[in-house]
């Protein structure tokens, strides 16, 4: 992180598993030091994209660049990444300390330096008193923190998070969400976060990429994406949207079967027949 935040780019990558096209020509640029979210339903390719960036999956075509350097065909262990799995994937035969220390030991960091760096990270995630425990003896939230510490201790260029909050109960999920956001801001590390939860995406992200059927459907600031879905598909994906068809009036209201919906639509659409996506947050109904 001394080098400053790093950009991640994917250019036209394709990946298929048997018959299924998991990624179809996906191109994206992730903001350096930003919190980038890949949002979409299960099976949309978001996890495959994340695993391609990590190197667990090799795309058939396209390029992946981390910090401007092409890594497409480099194996994961040579890439500067930190990865947090949905299942946490803590090694059950190692203590909390050893889980975090493992990557450092591989890099021949030993003795006091090792101790110092592991403890510093455990402090950051608020677990300094539990370092001798076995992962199995920790709660879900604590395991999550260990997984984060393990991913961050090597000071990677990119932090990759694969639905890290999915296995937590509702209360913890909100708490960990804030914790992850705080850490990311503090460390200014380029982060890519995979989720199917809109609320998480909205609260955490600097940028959201909505994915569907192996493609990127829309990219933008979360407020923009939620306020102005670029297509009916995105609107439907963003949940709870219902569609009404009607004609736009001079005032920018929508006339549906004689009923008037005050939606503040653009007057330039006046007289046109349109389909409007209604979500719970932004709807008002007025009597005709």
């Amino acid at each position, binding site marked *: 992180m001394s080098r400053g935040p790093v950009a991640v780019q994917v250019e036209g990558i394709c990946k298929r598993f048997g018959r299924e096209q998991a990624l179809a020509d996906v191109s994206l640029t992730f903001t350096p030091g930003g919190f980038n979210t890949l949002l979409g339903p299960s099976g949309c390719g978001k996890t495959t994209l994340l695993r391609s960036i*990590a*190197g*667990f999956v090799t795309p058939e075509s396209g390029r992946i660049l981390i910090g401007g350097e092409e890594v497409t*065909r480099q*194996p*994961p*262990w*040579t890439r500067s*990444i*930190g*990865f947090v*799995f949905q*299942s946490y*994937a*803590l*090694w*059950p*035969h190692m203590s909390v300390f050893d889980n975090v220390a*493992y*990557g450092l030991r*591989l*890099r021949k960091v030993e003795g006091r330096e090792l101790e110092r760096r592991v403890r510093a990270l455990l402090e950051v995630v608020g677990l300094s008193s539990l370092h001798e425990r076995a992962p199995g003896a920790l709660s879900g939230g604590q395991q999550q923190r260990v997984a984060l510490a*393990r*991913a961050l*201790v*090597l000071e990677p260029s990119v932090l990759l998070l694969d639905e890290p909050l999915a296995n937590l109960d509702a209360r913890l999920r909100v708490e960990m969400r804030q914790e992850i956001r705080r850490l990311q801001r503090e460390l200014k590390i380029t982060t890519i976060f995979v989720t199917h939860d809109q609320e998480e995406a909205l609260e955490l992200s600097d940028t959201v990429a909505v994915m569907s059927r192996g493609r990127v459907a829309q990219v933008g600031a979360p407020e923009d994406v939620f306020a102005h879905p670029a297509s009916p598909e995105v609107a439907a994906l963003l949940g709870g949207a219902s569609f009404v068809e009607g004609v736009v009036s001079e005032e920018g209201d929508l006339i549906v079967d004689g009923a008037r919906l005050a939606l503040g639509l653009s007057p330039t659409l006046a007289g046109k027949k349109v389909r409007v996506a209604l979500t719970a947050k932004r709807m008002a109904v007025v009597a005709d």
Partner: protein
Amino acid sequence: MTVGQRLRRDPWLLVALFLGVVLVLLVVVPQLWIVRSSLLARDGASLTLENFFRYLTAARYRTALVNSVLLAIVTTILAMLVAAPLAFFHARYRLPGRDLVLTLATLATASPPFLGAYAWIMLLGYNGLLSPALRGVGLPWHSIVGFHGVVWVGMWGAVGLVFLFAHDAFASLDQDLEEAAESVGARRWRAHLDIALPLAMPGLLTAAYLVLTGVLADFGTPRIIGGPVSVLPVLLYHEFLSEGGVNPGMASAGSLISVGLATAVLLLQRLVLAGRSYVMSGTRRVAQRTLPRWATMTVTLATAFFFVLVFVPHLVIAFSSFLSWRADIPGLPFTLDNYRMLALRSSKPVLVSYALSAISTLVAVVAGTLLAYVAVRRSYRVLSPSLQALTMIPYLIPGTVLAIGLIVVFNREPMRLTGTWMILALAYFIRKVPYATKSAEASLYQVHENLEEAALSVGATPAQALRDVTARLILPGLVSGATLTFLMTLTELSSTLMLYGAATTTMSIVIYQAAMGMGGQFGLAASTAVAMMVSVYVPLYLVRKRFPSSGVAA
């Protein structure tokens, strides 16, 4: 990517290729030699199907074939009828001594098959310990030697395995399913019959398959207790090894027929099971109910009787090892002479058995683990399925046939291995590689792939990740798998008998010779048999205690 690049990025490809070559050389090539020899006419040059034809027409061959099939079917049916109902009661009802019952059943599965034959002859052979008494009370008892003896011994050798599989099948049913049947008006027994039995069928059929193929391939039992009854493995042995040098083409044709028979049974089993694999939706395990008092007593008595019959051979042998033997007549007083002789003068077979089993187990477990890794964690389009098929071929090859193949291939320079310890180790290795692979696969499936990927993500190379994470986590499974492999090789007889030499006489050979009335060292054979039982049961008991869930029966 060039091949070089692929290999550098994925060294497992190299491992997979190497294992493939080894398996082809050791498993496929010998079988191909057998195929070739079975098709050669007596002149050694022209091709013919005459050998196969004679198998189906000449009485000597056809009888063996029919006997083998008949024996296998009768033994399997009887073993299922005896053990499955008992297992059902223990799975579904609260009965005393559940842990003991399961432990005994597990121990029974490891019983060396030829020990049973040996012991039952000692008891009920023409000159057996009990035969005069039977005749004395007026029973028309002649001897246990014959078809009925092979069935009797084979059945009691198989019931342990059937019991474990059936118990597993009945115990893993979701209780809601039967209660649902009761809720729509099925009586208790109706529900058992209509719901529990069909759902347990896959497990029961698997047990039946294992017994059937086991009996088909068994050499020791029919050879020792069959008397004049000829079966395929015994016939092969005589055809191939008899001094007169009977046509080797016939032995080869018989070998192929044996393998074909095993393959047919496997395909049949697959076919029958295909429509029957049910996914149980519930996770509620069966809760055990209580039987009425009289029924509890009856089942408990039946269970006790069952295990007495299973373990009679062991008790008889242990007892006879403390008797004074004069030639083949045992008598009093009780003595430790047999053990003294074993320890002081004849411990070599014990050491040979241990050394051979240890070496072959080590190699089988290493190879099996690598094979399992390629099968579970790599998905090479051609290589992975081919390796899996190759690994399973030895399942289908009876020990006698395997030995014939090895002799044919390794009987010439520069690879003359016949008569050496190496050919025995090779045979054991090939026979047990499928078991070692299956056991390692089961352990690997328990370790989530993410655990390994997590290591890669913090900079571990695949080799480091394997060493530091995966290997550590599958180690307990490997140890228990290795123990079982070791025990099975320790009791191997069929291929040993064809491949051993004077310097490589094993425990099983010593016992076999005594059982056949050869050599006359009966007291020594009894103490050797006890040494073998201790070598098998003590480790097995420890493994079962330490890893209660390990698939001991497989």
